[in-house]
């Protein structure tokens, strides 16, 4: 018989081992589904791997797809550190996309346009995140519920925009007018889609790490998240920290939308985000809320998404498997986190 027993300390190597364990468990669990769908497990995973990380082009595609998830992953990681339960990265991303698209459509010099797009997108995301944070601070409204429900509000506002005033008058499709060509983010490698936003995301991760680990704001975020009472008695203005965290988190999620508009789609449509905001939660959890861990976690999920499409074409396994893998990875990680507080102990049948 095996039972759980409280741990007194958690070894440091767990930070790396747990996500790997969770990913391993996920792939094993999902191999059952692949087999059920009538394909070879090794072949399916093989196709997934080669299509996402097998050659340099595939790698750039995976990085492009990882970029919004790095931003939303950082957004969620920052928020969760303060125990501000921001489930609204999806809506904040959409708001960022709309705002940057509106700015990008105004003719102006390219660099200025890109800068203002980022600023507008971040501000829009922050403004959206401010709503659940304010409701929580002022009225003790549950932030999980309010931030989650706000996603639908933002989504339908976006739909109203592209079905109404922004509707393409030429084709009649519900898509926004494109941004100016000069506002398109420069491509870094000829023949790929590797755009400026990818680099921005890779720089953002260590910056956010520095903010959390090495600044007084980061210290206050950590302490507020772990023990708001001790924070308050220690002279920290807890409400102010929560608001600051929400603004930062929303701005990061908004930047995810900016990258998609400026670097990938150059306009806004209803499916601009296939749930990158929600994937950000998975990314942040896999990363154990460590901003540096967000990058590999986002790349893993991006590889699964990119690979799943190729796998679907090659083996006939539905591409929905990518969603299943994401969901399973989150559950596996939550189970794995149990082992930071508990360990398994074998209890002999007879002693």
């Amino acid at each position: 018989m095996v039972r759980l027993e409280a741990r007194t300390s958690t070894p440091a190597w767990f930070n790396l081992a747990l996500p790997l364990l969770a990913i391993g468990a996920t792939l094993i669990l999902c191999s059952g589904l692949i087999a059920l769908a009538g394909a070879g497990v090794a072949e399916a995973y093989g196709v997934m791997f080669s299509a996402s990380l097998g050659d340099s082009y595939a790698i750039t595609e995976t990085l492009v797809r990882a970029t919004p998830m790095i931003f939303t992953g950082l957004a969620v990681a920052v928020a969760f550190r303060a125990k501000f339960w921001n489930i609204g990265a999806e809506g904040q991303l959409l708001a960022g996309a709309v705002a940057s698209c509106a700015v990008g459509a105004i003719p102006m010099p390219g660099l200025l346009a890109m800068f203002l797009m980022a600023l507008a997108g971040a501000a829009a995301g922050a403004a959206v995140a401010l709503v659940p944070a304010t409701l929580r601070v002022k009225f003790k409204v549950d932030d999980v519920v309010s931030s989650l429900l706000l996603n639908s509000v933002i989504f339908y506002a976006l739909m109203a925009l592209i079905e109404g005033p922004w509707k393409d008058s030429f084709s009649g499709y519900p898509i926004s007018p494109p941004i100016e060509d000069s506002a398109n983010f420069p491509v870094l490698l000829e023949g790929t889609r590797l755009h400026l936003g990818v680099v921005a995301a890779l720089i953002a991760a260590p910056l956010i790490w520095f903010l959390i680990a090495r600044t007084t704001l980061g210290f206050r975020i950590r302490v507020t998240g772990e023990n708001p009472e001790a924070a308050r008695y220690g002279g920290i203005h807890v409400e102010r920290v929560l608001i600051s965290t929400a603004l930062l988190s929303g701005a990061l999620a908004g930047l995810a939308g900016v990258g998609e508009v400026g670097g990938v789609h150059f306009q806004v449509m209803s499916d601009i985000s296939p749930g990158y905001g929600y994937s950000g939660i998975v990314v942040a959890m896999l990363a154990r809320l460590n901003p540096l861990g967000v990058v590999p976690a986002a790349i893993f999920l991006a590889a699964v998404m990119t690979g799943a499409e190729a796998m679907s074409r090659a083996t006939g396994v539905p591409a929905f498997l990518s969603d299943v893998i994401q969901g399973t990875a989150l559950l596996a990680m939550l189970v794995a986190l149990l082992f930071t507080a508990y360990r398994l102990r074998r209890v002999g049948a007879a002693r």
Partner: protein
Amino acid sequence: MSAPLIEMRGISKSFGAVKANEAVDLSVAPGEILGLLGENGAGKTTLMNVLFGAYAPDAGEILIQGQPVRINSSADALAAGIGMVHQHFHLAPRLSVLENLLIGIPGKSGRIDRAGGLARLAEIGREHGLTLDPGLPVSALSVGEQQRLEIVKALFRGARLLILDEPTAVLAPTEVDGLFAALRSMAAQGLGIIFISHKLNEVRALTHRCVVLRHGRVAGRVDTPASTTSSEMARLMCGHEIVPPARGPSTPGAAVLTLQGVSTSHHSGMALRDVSLAVRAGEILGIAGVSGNGQRALAEVISGVLAPDTGRMTIAGKAVTRFSPREVQALGLGRIPEDRMTTGLVTNLPLADSMVLPRIGTEAFSRKGLLKPDAIRAFAEEQIKAYDIRCPGPMTRAGALSGGNLQKALLARELAFDPKVLIVSQPTRGLDIGAARFIHEKFLDMRAKGCGIIVIGEDLEELLMLCDRIAVMYEGRLAGTLDSADATVARLGLLMTGAGQAGEAA
């Protein structure tokens, strides 16, 4: 004495390299009250957790009435007739006394047997003097009543052995007498009781036999606690003599903390009503009283967390205007809270973080919003050394430290910046003699250096030893102030019950 009710043989339990228990033997006979003594970290709680099924022992066996048993969960323990009253109660605050009692008790054909529960509750109440109003929600009970409910719960589930982990730490002196009477009555009916405590006078008064643990092993057994001196037992616990510190004559200076006509409202506990007091430099003022008489509100006002409705407060001669923790800290207030884990420290973060928390924004630990990690670490390391805080290092999770070490860490953090006033609540609750002695010495050192100290506590012996003057709180007011030369446990006890108002404002 008759065959043991329960016997633990050769119990060993390690956590990593730490041997929490090593080859511990222990037995309790029916009708026996066994004292389990030891300093913090001696392995008492681990041993009891093994007995109660929370930990599996690495070696050793447990016998109940001579039969070896395996206890893998608290459910197993309950089924085996072992009940435990933890230091932190496990009650559902919104449910009534009766409902808490019936949690987990299978009723008849899926229905809760309220009538049966009521009858049994009344019966237990009659037998041992453990009366409780079955309809009251737990949130309306005092701490002592909640503890009584925990004991009744254990008896209700048919416990024949009752483990009490530091039960008196949360009780007022009068409540302790009631608890002891109930425990004696239970023992007289053949129950076995394991009583864990640091308070040697209580152990001597109550128990029939004692087992003393030190570093996880049995350091000694005392067969006649009543005729064994406290210092002998203390020596078994610590391995050396413990001499209480002597408080020299005081030479108080100017007032460093004053409250004038302070009243509060809307407090979850008892509000303050027109409280005036002054603490002078180089003086220790005690605030005695049964908990729930406004001590918490007083501590919150002084800590700058609760702004009074009326009245004034000054620290070091300067008026407190905004009542924020930052303001009172800046004026020179240090604070050792009653609940280390909730308002003092951040258990999930490194110890170093907790140690710099109140002063993270100062030049010592940050500059222009950037932390100085080296300075933070160095400060923590320095204090760990200076206060002999037992931990692997400053980056250890604070929650992994024992209560005594956490208290030292809090003390170190506050004293490092030479506070002019120190407010302290229940400074040695749950601490062993050695750690308590250390804390007391530090307070007396600070007093000699001219710090004004205000100690809120329920342990009258401790207050009498430490304080120059003692004020008693009753129903949100100061019922009277005594010079400790004139104060006795009896006089203070009288004031604590609201009888015999004496003296003026402190």
